[in-house]
């Protein structure tokens, strides 16, 4: 057993998992509250990345210092993604509250296609380089080959975001309203919860996490195009389901499990069938635990 190799794969999987987690969190929150597979969530992530890139480039041109660029670009990405999430809910999902679930899903797919092509047409179909916002720190030197400063930032941010979200859901008024709404929307209304606001907030928070992820991930990967949201979205969706969709810790656990699965499978077997294995793993988990790793097992009341 090559311990160092194992450690490297482990850390690689951890980074990958953290990336999935940042996107999966929004997926899972939205699902938890309105039981909608928000297919366009990946596009919100993509728009976050583009906004970040655009703002960062403009600011760099204007001669702002790097740190200011980093902060302003991230904030802009988060704000804009949240606004997009908010608007999207109002246009494509809210009028469909009472409609069959499939209709909402198709609407989400339509939204996803629309946003992808909106960015494609307004910007470009080419890959655009994304500036590295987190410097590659040198003092890591002896260990830098194991984990880079960027990876550390991603992992830390994921952990912090997850803890914050958990606290928000557990202890704040909004969190309580969210939990109540997800369990029984009509009853939540009857206790005085403004359900529309709660749903909007959920989209806003989910989109904000996605945007934060987008800036970090794009700066880690170094390039973006209009299509990144789709692939990342599918993976995040798989992660969310794996962990038990609707559950915040579940999304993170699912994402990490997915990240490690892919990493170790690639490392010890082959990356040819990396995704195949990830999907088979998902199927196997769901067969034995049909509601995901941390999902509530919903026994239907008879």
């Amino acid at each position: 057993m090559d311990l160092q190799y194992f450690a490297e794969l482990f850390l690689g999987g951890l980074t990958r998992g953290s990336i999935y987690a940042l996107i999966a969190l929004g997926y899972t929150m939205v699902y938890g509250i309105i039981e909608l597979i928000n297919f366009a969530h990946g596009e919100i992530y993509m728009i976050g990345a583009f906004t970040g890139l655009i703002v960062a480039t403009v600011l760099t041109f204007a001669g702002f210092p790097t740190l200011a660029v980093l902060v302003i670009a991230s904030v802009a990405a988060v704000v804009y993604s949240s606004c997009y999430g908010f608007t999207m809910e109002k246009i494509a999902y809210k009028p469909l509250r009472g409609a069959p679930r499939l209709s909402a899903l198709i609407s989400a797919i339509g939204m996803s296609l629309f946003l992808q092509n909106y960015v494609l047409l307004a910007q470009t179909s080419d890959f655009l380089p994304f500036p590295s916002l987190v410097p590659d720190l040198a003092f890591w030197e002896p260990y830098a080959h194991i984990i880079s400063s960027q990876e550390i930032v991603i992992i830390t941010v994921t952990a912090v975001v997850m803890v914050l979200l958990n606290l928000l859901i557990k202890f704040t008024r909004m969190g309580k309203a969210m939990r109540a709404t997800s369990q029984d929307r009509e009853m939540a209304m009857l206790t005085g919860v403004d359900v529309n606001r709660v749903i909007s907030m959920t989209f806003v928070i989910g989109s904000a996490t996605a945007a934060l992820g987008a800036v970090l991930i794009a700066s880690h990967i170094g390039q973006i195009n209009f299509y990144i949201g789709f692939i990342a979205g599918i993976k995040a969706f798989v992660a969310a389901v794996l962990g038990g969709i609707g559950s915040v810790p579940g999304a993170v656990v699912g994402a990490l499990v997915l990240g490690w699965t892919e990493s170790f499978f690639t490392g010890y077997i082959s990356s040819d069938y990396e995704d195949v294995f990830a999907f088979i793993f998902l199927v196997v988990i769901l067969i034995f635990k049909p509601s995901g790793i941390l999902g509530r097992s919903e026994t239907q009341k008879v």
Partner: protein
Amino acid sequence: MLKIDDINTYYGNIQALKGISLEIGAGEIICLIGANGAGKSTTLMSICGVVPPRTGRIVFEDREIQNLPTNRIVELGIVQVPEGRRIFPYLTVAENLDMGAFLRKDKAAIARDLDYIYDLFPILAKRRHQAGGTLSGGEQQMLAISRALMARPRLLLLDEPSLGLAPLVVKQIFEIIGKINRENNTTIFLVEQNANLALQIAHRGYVMETGRITLTDTAANLLANEDVKKAYLGI
């Protein structure tokens, strides 16, 4: 206190309420009886704005509320215990009660009310950290009523509190409803299938048939009414 004036409400493809008018005075227990599907629950949902009426007016203490969103109506003090109890199954008993006080800000008063509730229903105090979904039917009904009380209702709407409960529990629940009305002077609008029990604690009653109010009188008179006896009291 509450005046409903000729409301029409649509549910799905059916017009559920056809020109309902009724009135509830402060401190009263009013009982609405009728067969299943007559529109009793819809009436409550219309008052709360969950299924707002398409036409007509609902006036609560001189204020038109038919166009307000539910949360604003709850804020005014109209609180409903819906049919089937609707406990948040994954929230603990304490959290469920907390949700009842969602719109209230005064922490001290909330704590006092909580003590009152635990006093009223000692079993809830015992189960305070248990998830709501794991309670028995009777306990859930107690929790549902308590949750509503936590909102300090001025008008409490109760929808079928006896549904699916054992006779013993039904009796307890009705005793408590009477107690709440007496002790807090809470106005209560009660929708019941079990007309016999309901009319025994109510002051006045309305009888509903397929979306219309067909009869209204004092509870005692209704209990004595031959038609009501035949149709709803099973005597």
